[in-house]
C-alpha cells in the first residue's frame, strides 16, 4: 500500500488521502465521508503534469471519464510511476504544458477531452463531460459553455465524498469558475473553391 496525503479528487475543495494498492486506489476525504474507489482495470491511460495545486495525476478511465488527483509533490513522481508500472502495468506519461502564454494554437479532439495545443504542447484540456453546451456564436466563432450550479450544493455528490465533484461539475471547483470559452476558428471552405491540381 502506498499513501499520499493532502490530495484533491476532481478539484474537491477539501483534501484527502489517496491510497494505492495492487487492486486499485481509493481517496478518503480528511474531514470524513465516503471513500471513492477505482478498480485498476478501469485505468486506461495516466499522465503526470504540473497543476494549480502541486502536481497532478490524471487518469483516463473506461467508464468514469477523466479523473484528476491533484496536490502531489514533484518528488512523488518516482513512487507513482513505479507503482503504476508494477501494479497496473501502465506507464505514467510525463506531460509538459505550454507556458508561452499564447491564445492561438490548435484545438485537438482526443478520446475523452479537448486539448488546446500551443506550439505542440497542451496549454490546457477540457474533458467532454464538463461541457454543458456548445453553439455557433457567430461567423467563425464557437462558444463552449460549462455548467456551474448557482446553489451551495454544486458538487453533484450531495455532500458525500468530502466535496469531491461528480462529472460535469469540475468547473465550479475553482474560486473563479470558468463558465464560457469562445474560439475563433478560421473559415477555409469559401477560400478553397479553387482546387489546386498537380499536388500530392
Amino acid at each position, binding site marked *: 500500500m502506498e499513501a499520499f496525503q493532502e490530495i484533491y479528487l476532481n478539484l474537491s475543495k477539501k483534501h484527502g488521502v489517496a491510497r494505492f494498492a495492487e487492486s486499485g486506489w481509493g481517496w478518503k476525504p480528511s474531514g470524513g465521508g465516503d471513500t471513492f474507489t477505482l478498480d485498476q482495470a478501469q485505468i486506461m491511460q495516466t499522465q503526470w503534469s504540473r497543476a494549480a495545486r502541486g502536481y497532478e495525476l490524471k487518469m483516463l478511465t473506461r467508464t468514469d471519464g477523466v479523473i484528476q488527483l491533484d496536490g502531489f509533490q514533484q518528488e512523488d513522481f518516482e513512487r507513482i510511476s513505479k507503482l503504476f508500472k508494477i501494479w497496473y502495468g501502465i506507464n505514467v506519461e510525463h506531460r509538459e504544458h505550454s507556458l508561452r502564454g499564447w491564445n492561438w494554437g490548435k484545438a485537438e479532439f482526443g478520446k475523452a477531452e479537448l486539448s488546446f495545443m500551443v506550439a505542440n504542447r497542451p496549454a490546457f484540456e477540457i474533458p467532454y463531460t464538463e461541457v454543458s453546451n456548445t453553439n455557433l456564436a457567430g461567423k467563425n466563432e464557437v462558444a463552449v459553455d460549462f455548467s456551474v450550479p448557482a446553489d451551495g450544493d454544486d458538487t453533484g455528490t450531495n455532500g458525500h465524498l468530502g466535496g469531491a465533484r461528480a462529472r460535469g461539475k469540475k468547473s465550479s471547483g*475553482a474560486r473563479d469558475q470558468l463558465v464560457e470559452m469562445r474560439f475563433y476558428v478560421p473559415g477555409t471552405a469559401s477560400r478553397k473553391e479553387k482546387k489546386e491540381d498537380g499536388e500530392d
Partner: protein
Amino acid sequence: SLNGTEEKKFKRFEAYKRDNQFPNKVKDLEIVVDKKNLTVVLPIMGRPVPFHIHTIKNASHTPEGDFTSLRINFLSPGQGVGRKDDQPFEDPTAHFIRSLTFRSHDIDRIDDITRDITELKKEVVRREQEKKQMED
C-alpha cells in the same frame, strides 16, 4: 511595405520559461495578475494557464446579485475596428481563444483583477508607443 503603408510585424513573446515561475497564489484556483511577468494566469480545469498581456484585448466584469462575471476578450483575427484588420498575427490560420468568462463570488477581488488587467494593458501599450517614437 504594402501600398505605401508600413506593415506591422508580429513580435514574439513568452509568459514563462519554467513552471516554477508561477505565482504561489495559483494554488487557490483563482485568477492571478502577474504584473512582473506581464501575464494573467487563469484556472482552467485545475491547471494554471498563462496568457501574456499581449494576447488580451480587454477585460470587464458585470456584478449580478452575489456574484460577478468577468469576461476577458483576446485578440483574434476578424475583429478589427477599422476598415482593415491591421493587428498582426503569427499564424492567422490557427485556432484562437477569443474570450473566457469566469464567475466568482469575490466581487471586490474580481474588481481589482479587472482594474489590474486594464492598467497593465494600458501600461504596455504606452511603453510600446514610447519605444516606437524613439525609433522614428
